[in-house]
């Protein structure tokens, strides 16, 4: 089975522009989470979506938004890009069954560079 997929793999934007990142979860997974990993740091939680509804939000400004589609894929949107938004953006999916074996699986990430 295919794992979590993300597109594009790399992206270069300039300050003030808008960007859309995409994520397809593992087949059967209904929950998607987004994380930002700045170089040299651990990932930081941005959003979690389940059944197309936002179920959690990290400490990020309103310039960051996301949505989940009926097929459970997801988009992360960032408006008015700043240099500090340069990072690896990671998507993770899980079943969200509440079971002990329910685990988040991560995609390879999208590397965003803001110039």
């Amino acid at each position, binding site marked *: 089975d295919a*794992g979590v997929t993300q597109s594009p793999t790399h992206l270069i934007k300039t300050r003030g522009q808008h960007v859309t990142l995409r994520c397809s979860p593992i087949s059967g997974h209904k929950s998607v989470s987004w994380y930002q990993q700045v170089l040299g740091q651990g990932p930081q939680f941005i959003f979690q979506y389940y059944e197309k509804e936002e179920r959690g939000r990290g400490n990020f400004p309103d310039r960051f938004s996301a949505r989940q589609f009926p097929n459970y894929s997801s988009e992360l949107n960032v408006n008015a890009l700043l240099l500090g938004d340069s990072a690896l953006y990671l998507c993770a999916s899980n079943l969200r069954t509440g079971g002990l074996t329910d685990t988040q699986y991560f995609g390879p990430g999208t590397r965003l560079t803001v110039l």
Partner: protein
Amino acid sequence: AQSVTQLDSHVSVSEGTPVLLRCNYSSSYSPSLFWYVQHPNKGLQLLLKYTSAATLVKGINGFEAEFKKSETSFHLTKPSAHMSDAAEYFCVVSRTNDYKLSFGAGTTVTVRA
């Protein structure tokens, strides 16, 4: 709230010697604890997970971790390092069934031949 502190930013070991990566956690609730590994230009891979079952957790590739509530620690060990273990390792905590993961700053492991 929950957080983790990884006590070493960089660990260097010789191939065939033991590896120890230290992690302390803080949690207001009964935590779930994880170790993830990130190889260069690769996604995060789950090594192991603790969810209030056995305190000694065995993971993939010979790694294991021990949950010690009295010390609020969740250290990762491997008896014999392999060159392929060179990577970035993250200790992670979440509230059980919360799914919002809080990552540590990471420990870079280098393995000398």
